[in-house]
């Protein structure tokens, strides 16, 4: 799979749009960062707006996932809203579109943390996933501060901004 370098540009009106390029995922992180920086310099030289961010996204092979067909009741505007806290007290949000209604309490809108699938998501944020070699990969906030607790898990409704 590939790494996607996304450059976000802002115009004078404050509107933002992105430009992206894909590269192979075989390079070292430092090499990818250098490429991304130089790619953004090339973009910077041909625009009138301002580059606000440059991110690198690793695209993952998802062929092993088993939910291949959206069910009739699936709706990406029904969002599982999670909010976590880091060791420094920073808040980290994660919105999961298309949350399974069976995991939500109909009366309160709270997501049922007693369900194993939800436990997995929360434990992943708070404690990490064990990958090969016994290594734990642990989510952080944007400043690399560890996530240590959960503040909120509830269903919300949000326009997807996309219609078919």
């Amino acid at each position, binding site marked *: 799979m590939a790494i996607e370098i996304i450059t976000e540009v802002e115009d004078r009106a404050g509107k933002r749009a992105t430009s992206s390029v894909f590269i192979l995922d075989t390079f070292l992180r430092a090499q990818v960062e250098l490429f991304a920086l130089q790619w953004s310099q090339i973009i910077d030289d041909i625009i009138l707006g301002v580059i606000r961010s440059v991110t690198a996204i690793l695209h993952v092979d998802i062929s092993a996932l088993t939910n291949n067909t959206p069910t009739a009741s699936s709706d990406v505007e029904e969002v599982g809203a999670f909010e976590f806290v880091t060791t420094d007290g920073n808040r980290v949000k994660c919105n999961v579109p298309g949350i399974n209604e069976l995991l939500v309490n109909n009366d309160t809108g709270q997501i*049922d*943390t*007693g*369900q*194993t*699938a939800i*436990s*997995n998501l*929360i*434990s*992943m944020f*708070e*404690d*990490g*996933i*064990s990958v090969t070699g016994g290594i*734990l990969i642990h989510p952080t906030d944007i400043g690399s501060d560890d996530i240590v*607790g*959960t503040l909120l898990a509830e269903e919300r409704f949000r326009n997807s901004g996309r219609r078919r």
Partner: protein
Amino acid sequence: MLEEILEVVKTELDNSENGKTTFSHLKTVLPESRHGRILDALRIGRSQGVLKKYVTKLEDGSMETVIEKVS
């Protein structure tokens, strides 16, 4: 209530062969009314340093929260 749940967790860890148990297993030994508080109890156990937990992929391909005894 959380201390009671944590005691059950500790017992399960002590009784397991490898010092590990899973969230799904804990649900089988705790009444359904307690399931929504298991994570809260596990956080207490983690802060006390008696256990750690993480998510892993099992041999059957499913994801599971594993709780491990800290010795």
